């Protein structure tokens, strides 16, 4: 009897303490002016991957690195074109594994936009393929139990701010303690709050608070500088390697186009010292022009179009939400000029991202 009371009382106390803690934490976060963010993991990627079979005149698939995730404002795209944007790009990754996966999938016959961030697209280091390969593997092996968990988790993530894994998980909070690191040990960069939120459509965005906080912005630019220094130590990409990569990309694009699909490459904006470094390390004639010439695909390089040529990215690499809206509108116009067809042709006064 005593033991029964002990456990019941302890259980009730635990429920009260857990509820009080989580409710307080949730209220605190909501008062910080933060938005909902989703876990951009294999389950969310798989959910989007399943959608690529929509008819060619109904949807467009986007693959690439983080830039297209920030720069394509999906609500603007969908509002103007009436076309479903399926975001399959992966942060810090090359699009090539996903391109190969789509090329091998006989049922994919849709429109495909490939974002080219040269230092990832032409990289040969295994880490650029890691996330895309893990996501593809997850998609292929996803179990019914995982699908159900994802559906339940969606409901929870859509309503609870503290379920932002990138910023409020236990490990993220511990990482925020800023314990001095051992010398010569690589530590994955700690991105500041407000730089990594993700919508359910897998659009990444920076919060206004982040954009207006120069300390946070500088923290990210220091990360890019660190990556720049690290890449200086790596051997340059050889011509043979470039040719090999382009040849494999051409093969994949040919397969998709042979089935009636459409493929276009896009070089999304960067600015400041990062753009200067990219121009130097990846000259257009050696990479971008060669890629388009070899594959025979169309391409949109931001520097060729004045309305999108002069963006000043907050941290030199990605667009803020208002910039992404502007970029997306121009991008759609350019695509239309290049003969791309969309379900509807609404006016270009699309609302800004309602989910942000």
């Amino acid at each position, binding site marked *: 009897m*005593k*033991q029964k009371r002990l456990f019941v*009382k302890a259980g009730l*106390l635990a429920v009260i303490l857990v509820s009080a803690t989580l409710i307080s934490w949730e209220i605190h976060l909501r008062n910080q002016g933060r938005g909902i963010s989703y876990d951009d993991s294999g389950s969310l990627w798989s959910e989007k991957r399943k959608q690529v079979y929509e008819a060619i005149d109904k949807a467009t698939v986007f693959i690439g690195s983080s830039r297209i995730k920030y720069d394509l404002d999906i609500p603007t795209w969908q509002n103007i074109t009436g076309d479903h944007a399926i975001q399959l790009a992966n942060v810090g990754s090359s699009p090539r594994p996903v391109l190969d996966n789509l090329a091998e999938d006989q049922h994919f016959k849709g429109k495909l936009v490939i974002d080219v961030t040269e230092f990832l697209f032409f990289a040969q280091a295994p880490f650029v393929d890691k996330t895309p390969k893990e996501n593809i593997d997850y998609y292929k092996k996803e179990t019914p139990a*995982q699908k159900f968990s994802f559906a339940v988790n969606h409901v929870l993530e859509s309503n609870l701010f503290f379920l932002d894994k990138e910023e409020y998980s*236990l490990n993220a909070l511990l990482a925020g303690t800023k*314990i001095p690191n051992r010398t010569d040990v690589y530590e994955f960069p700690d991105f500041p709050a407000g730089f990594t939120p993700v919508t359910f459509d897998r659009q990444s965005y920076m919060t206004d608070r982040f954009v207006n906080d120069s300390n946070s912005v500088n923290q990210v630019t220091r990360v890019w500088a660190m990556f720049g220094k690290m890449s200086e130590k790596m051997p340059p990409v050889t011509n043979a390697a470039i040719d090999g990569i382009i040849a494999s990309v051409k093969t994949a694009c040919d397969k998709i186009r042979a089935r009636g699909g459409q493929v276009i490459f896009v070089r999304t904006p960067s600015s400041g010292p990062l753009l200067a470094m990219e121009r130097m390390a990846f000259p257009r004639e050696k990479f971008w022009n060669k890629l388009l010439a070899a594959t025979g695909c169309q391409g949109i390089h931001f520097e060729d179009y004045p309305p999108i040529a002069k963006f000043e990215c907050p941290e030199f690499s990605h667009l803020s939400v208002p910039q992404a809206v502007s970029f997306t509108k121009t991008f759609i116009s350019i695509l239309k000029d290049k003969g791309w067809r969309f379900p509807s042709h609404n006016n270009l006064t699309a609302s800004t991202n309602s989910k942000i």
Partner: protein
Amino acid sequence: MVFNSLTFIVFFAIMLLLHNLPLAWKVKKINLLLASYLFYAVWNPPFILLLWLSTVVDFFVGKALYAQQNPYKKKLLLVVSLIGNLGMLCFFKYGNFLLENFVQLTSAIGLDFHPAKPTIILPAGISFYTFTTLCYTIDMYKKRSEPVRSVLDFSLFVTFFPHLVAGPIVRPEQLVPQFETPRRANQTQLVQGLFLLSLGLFMKVVLADGMLASPADAVFGSLAPLATLDAWMGVLAFSGQIFFDFAGYSTCAIAVAMCLGFVLPENFKYPYAAIGFSDFWKRWHITLSSWLRDYLYIPLGGNRNGKTRTYINLMITMLLGGLWHGANWTFVVWGGLHGLFLAGEKMIQDLNKNRTPAIVKKRSFAIQGISGVQLVKAFSSSKLLLALLTFFLVNVTWVFFRSPDFTTAWSILTSMFTNVEGGAALLTSLTIIKITVVISLMFICHWVMRNRKVLPLTSKIRWWVLGLVWALMLILLILSQESTNSFIYFQF
């Protein structure tokens, strides 16, 4: 379905509701059986057929074995069951491994043989339910117990979802009688079960996945030679990870069964406080080690045929035990090392028996061979040192268990025991702090709890302290937000 998933929480809530409705016991058992099949099928639906096949074959073969009087026919039936069960296990688990070794063998003798590499997917939990059904048919052959009368009870014995995928490996006499009479958890059992479930999930999600998995993966996946500190930290991290992962699963399984009114056998007793390897195997994966003892070591002759034969039996048992964990020679070496340590202990025991006078014997080691080493209580500091020595040696064996190949294992062992020139520092300060804190607390906890059990202990502390601890575990569990990673033992 894994316990650490939202799907399971929904599933379990429905099961609790159904099990507590005023329904006939047979209907509740059918519910449990269907739920168990669902639990398994949502992983990979086609593999449910293997489970059915195993259940049906062993139910009927078991009955026939018990009734059969003709010794030849009896042996034939046993062979049918062994071929059915072990054949399935060999094909799915060891098919690729056997083929690879055969190709290497043919290559060694100069033959050019290149077969197509088969794509064989390992059905989850096959090693566990195969052992569950095997012990039933062997028991029937030896008439240790009576055959299960109802196919429903037998199916539930094999398939009961808490133990199905990763144990504890149950014996018929432990579970079947529980299906014969109506069972429902009372309020205390239900709340205690929920407490244990919280504890099991905390061990898996917060400690194994959240704190230790990543550094262990980084160290064992490193291509470069490592600095000594990093190599040790990686091994300690894995040591903690595999304990929290597997003991966490077992705790969840016991807890879930308890919430439904059933009792599953204990599988872990604070193994890192073990004094010696025989003590370790009385504390680590207890249901497997007792299975190996009863169905392999003793049938091989155990310690009944002289010292040499005892050592050989011990080694065979541990080598096969190693191979049970995975189709790789590294697991065999891991089992072999445990066999050597066990044999060494047995040897010390034999020497001690012969040389130590009776009076001194009382004050020195009371070594009990395969059943464990126990020191005299007065030497408590020696006990702690011996526990630390055992923990140290167990960590060395984990290197082979976790390494994907021998090259990695040697590289890590070299880094652990020598100062490798240019050895890379891999782990961040924060990671090292996390590992040190978690592993130190784990060892202290094991040492303090080595002769205690959780539930009786919790009944001795104040309710609000228990409530605080429980709340802390749940908060950390929710904040961890780790993805629903599979348990390590699912692959075995």
